């Protein structure tokens, strides 16, 4: 690193620093092994994206194949459908699901009865603890041909469809269930930041005759604006990881048109068919794109809130 010879004094300091942290290094040994084996070990496996992987030859002796799998993935017309579905689903999430916890937090924060507030909070966090499988079970059962929601729609409109296999209905189902699952839990962070707003501001506003509505608009919302923008950026940064577990459980051949996203396609085309090289190529693409998105989001967050996401 440095050309000039390291002075003995500096080396002594360096060694002393090392010896000083011997216990900490000992402690960190197991986590380090974990990261190397399971995280960086997995990264090493991404090499097979450039190889024609054969289980017999293993990772190192499999034949190099260049960027064939990337070309195959990016050149496929289906790729654009995956991109479209991922982007559209995220846009829907940002427009319909993202604001709900903010409204919820503002409403809870404005309510004057402590017990009511507590009850609403306790109830609204419940869905967070319901597993993805259970949520999907509730959805499929309520939307089945003799399910509750289907019955209600039939009673109201006189007709009903098979909503689970209807590509047009898939996004609505996904977004509504996402609101159900995450809105309450998502409001915690906004509630915390609302609690940090100086009460003096509200008092001053009341003396000036500002209504509750005006107080929300001019004190509460600006007070949590930076948290909102950071959450928004985080959502955008994680865009490519969009709930594939849920989609994996909910979609079917007839809804691929709107439901299939990069990660579900990856599972179907790679794990299920044991085409691991192709899978790693898609993963690598996805990982790099995500990294770029998150980094951009972090840069933007720094500008807004003078705070970094990590």
């Amino acid at each position, binding site marked *: 690193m440095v050309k000039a010879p390291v002075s003995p004094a500096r080396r002594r300091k360096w060694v002393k620093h090392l010896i000083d942290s011997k216990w900490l290094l000992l402690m960190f040994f197991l986590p380090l092994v974990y990261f190397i084996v*399971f995280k960086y070990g997995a990264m090493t*496996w991404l090499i097979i994206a450039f190889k024609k992987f054969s289980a017999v030859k293993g990772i190192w002796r499999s034949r190099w194949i260049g960027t064939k799998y990337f070309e195959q993935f990016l050149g496929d017309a289906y790729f654009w459908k995956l991109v479209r579905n991922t982007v559209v689903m995220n846009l829907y999430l940002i427009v319909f699901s993202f604001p709900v916890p903010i409204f919820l937090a503002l409403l809870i924060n404005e309510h004057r009865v*402590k017990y009511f507030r507590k009850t609403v909070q306790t*109830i609204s966090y419940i869905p967070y603890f319901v*597993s993805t499988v259970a949520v999907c079970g509730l959805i499929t059962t309520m939307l089945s041909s003799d399910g509750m929601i289907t019955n209600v729609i039939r009673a109201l409109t006189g007709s009903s469809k098979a909503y689970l296999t209807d590509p047009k209905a898939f996004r609505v189902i996904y977004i509504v269930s996402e609101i159900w699952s995450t809105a309450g839990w998502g409001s915690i962070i906004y509630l915390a930041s609302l609690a940090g707003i100086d009460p003096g501001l509200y008092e001053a506003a009341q003396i000036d005759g500002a209504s509750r509505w005006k107080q929300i608009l001019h004190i509460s919302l600006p007070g949590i604006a930076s948290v909102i923008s950071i959450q928004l950026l985080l959502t955008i940064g994680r865009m490519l990881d969009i709930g594939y*577990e849920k989609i994996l*459980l909910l979609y079917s051949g007839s809804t691929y048109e709107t439901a299939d996203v990069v990660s579900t396609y990856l599972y179907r085309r790679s794990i299920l068919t044991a085409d691991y090289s192709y899978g790693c190529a898609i993963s690598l693409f996805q990982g790099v794109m995500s990294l770029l998105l998150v980094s951009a989001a972090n840069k933007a967050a720094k500008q807004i809130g003078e705070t970094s996401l990590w």
Partner: protein
Amino acid sequence: MEKTKERHDHPMKVRQARGDRAFGLLNTALLTLFCLFVLFPLVHMLAVSFSGGYHVLRGEVTFWPKGMTLYTYRSLLSDNSIPHAYWNTIRYTFLGTALAIFMTSICAYPLSRPKFFGRKFFSFLAIFTMLFNVGMVANFMVVYSLGLKNTIYAILFPTAINVYNMVIMRTFFQGIPEEIYESANLDGANDLRTFFQIILPISKPVIASIVLFYAVGKWNEFMPALLYMDNKKDYPMQMILRNIVLSSQATDTSTDSALVGQSLKYAAIFITIAPILAVYPFLQKFFTKGIMIGSLKG
């Protein structure tokens, strides 16, 4: 948080009172609506799961059971695979959480100490794995090549450290006053002793939060089992639930299966989520506290 909660309860000017009362009513109405939206599927699930198949089939059950019966629960529990899967879930949750909290805390502590040799480098090493997601195929290949497939270690090891949880813990450790470390040092305690005898005991709140995060995550996950477990005897409850709830989707044609179908599915869902729902209200403050610590960083 609670201290500042009472801030709106000042005497108001009469002129405003009317508009504010309307606001209060609207607020209560909206929040009540939201709670109903949240509770509706759960209450419906409970009602149907306790109802007689005939009433369910006729669509008569909404929020209150009709023809009350425990038939579904009895038939679920008499099938041996469900108690067995339940036991698997308990095992995976308990061991997984124990391993994860151990690994996470011995990872977070060194990274929280300013004097730790190579702290910046190791922190980056850890954080980078959160930013760059290698994807399920590469993770699958690691588990496969280590020969962990179809063993309990495939469920426990790959998720031993959740970097996000680790960062929450590290943030908490960093908030402990430096004097505590100094006095421990003066007393001749080395870093290991300081950690286990002084830091861990005063970190109970954050440890409780992280334990709960891990436990809920472990209880609810199904992907590791889907990827790594080929034998039904190793399936956790979530996998069994997945098969019960989703497999019959296509084949739900015979009236006989439809007769119990819905109630059985709802009962299976309820059995799976019940333990967490039962303990959650008592542990709520630990969950929210964890989130707060996480949001304080930066």
